[in-house]
């Protein structure tokens, strides 16, 4: 099993979620994060004080999937989350050694 973690632009969430569901993903977990990267931020000014804000709002999507689904999932995310503009985000794949569904105690692929 693999954990596919994608950092995407917030307004792409619904599209990505729908596309993933279509390829057989049954669940995922989303976190609001702030991203720093090549995409430039903006400046905020409060009376005299100027602050360069380089962290931008992003969403992190985590999907645990069986190894054989990984490529399809990466593909799906890449396609739907892409705007072509800088700051579209990244996908990272890490290994999962065990998985458990708390409600039933089912393990590994059955748990996803």
């Amino acid at each position: 099993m693999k954990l596919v973690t994608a950092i995407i632009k917030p307004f792409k969430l619904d599209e990505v979620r729908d596309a993933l569901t279509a390829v057989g993903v049954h669940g995922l977990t989303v976190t609001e994060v702030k991203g720093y990267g090549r995409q430039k931020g903006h400046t905020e000014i409060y009376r005299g004080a100027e602050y360069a804000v380089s962290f931008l709002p992003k969403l992190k999507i985590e999907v645990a999937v069986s190894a054989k689904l990984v490529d399809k999932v990466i593909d799906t995310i890449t396609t739907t989350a892409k705007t072509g503009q800088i700051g579209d985000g990244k996908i990272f794949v890490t290994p999962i050694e065990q998985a458990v569904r708390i409600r039933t105690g089912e393990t590994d692929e059955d748990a996803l």
Partner: protein
Amino acid sequence: MNLSKFARLAAPVALLGLMAIEPSLAQDAAAPAAEAAAPTPNKGDTTWMLLSTILVFMMIAPGIGLFYGGLVRSKNMLSVLMQTFTIACVLMVLWVVYGYSFALNAGTVADWFVGGTSRLFLAGITPDSTAATFTDGVVIPEYVFVAFQMTFFALTPTLIVGGFAERIKFSAAVLFAVLWATIVYIPVAHMVWYSEGYLFALGALDFAGGTVVHINAGIAALVGALVLGPRIGYGREVLAPHSLVMTYIGAALLWAGWFGFNAGSNLEANGGAALALINTLVATAAAAIGWLAIESIAKGKASMLGAVSGAIAGLVAVTPAAGLVGPIGAIVLGGLAGVVCFFFCTTIKNALGYDDSLDVFGIHGVAGILGSIGTGIFAAAELGGVGLADGMTIGGQVYIQTVGVVITIVYGGIASFIIYKIVDLIVGLRVSAETEREGLDVNSHGERAYSI
């Protein structure tokens, strides 16, 4: 107080007295002319109008700012506060410069349509100047009359912001408001409230501004929504209100301020103001109940946003009627407004597909029309109102009311359309798609609403 007269003359007559004011010179202040015989203001009335002005001010800020601001996404919160606040500030100054003179004073060219230059820069007004009220011989200081009417002038264009919120350029919003207030508000106010104005002379009843303020703003917002087009993602993405708590606070303060708006339009602290006050309580309450009842039936749940939306609909509907109908008439009118506006905002608007972001037309426009027509009905003595003019039938009054509504819609609609086009030429109406995505706060104002 002679009620039949009250009903016949309605709000406009308050302005009759203005022309009688001696042109005392400000410079001449130390010698306030020989106006010994002139009536002096009753201090209770003066206090009442000071209070009413402050109350309407609270509708502008924080009232409408929070009501509207809570309904947009957090990335656009400040843009709404900023647009409403800045528009109001600019218009307050312009009211002193030329607004008051052209709106509520005698005109030389076409007095049925617009006033003249006699009061530019408030020329000739001193602390001793007075303005007439509904009652013969009862006056209030002219400065407080100017200030009270200033808040109406400043408030009305801020209502329109709801129609194009979350996508307009800041400069475009302010420029539009200035042009609209000048070209639309001023003549409509003159026609409705000034003694020589076309609609006033016709006998149209508008106690506190149903046509001038609400229908007028509603139609301008609708035109704006159509001209600017929908927000990105409208109908597909979640565009949920970012803080219904702010909307609640705003609605509550709008209601509180509306007592000044409606009962203050009586210009005097007497039983008529008390009637307008109680009507502004019960019509609003009935409208909230009306919306909630129909919403429970149609959607299965009564929502907080429904309750306050209904309340605003009720406030709008009772605005032209406040001092003219009885409490039971107000309850019926309010209840109706709640139901009709629910139906409009949830069904008709969706069917038509335009994006009036915060339902300015669906609430101010629709309830304004309902209230204006309803005033012609419930003002009748048989229905518990203070009575129509001598010899006037309900049918006749409703016809006159309808004329007022139609003129406001047609004139306001066409003029607004042209003004939007002009503004688009000068500064451009809409922000770029990227700015709209990121939010107006950071892009147009360089700040964020919350950093919690």
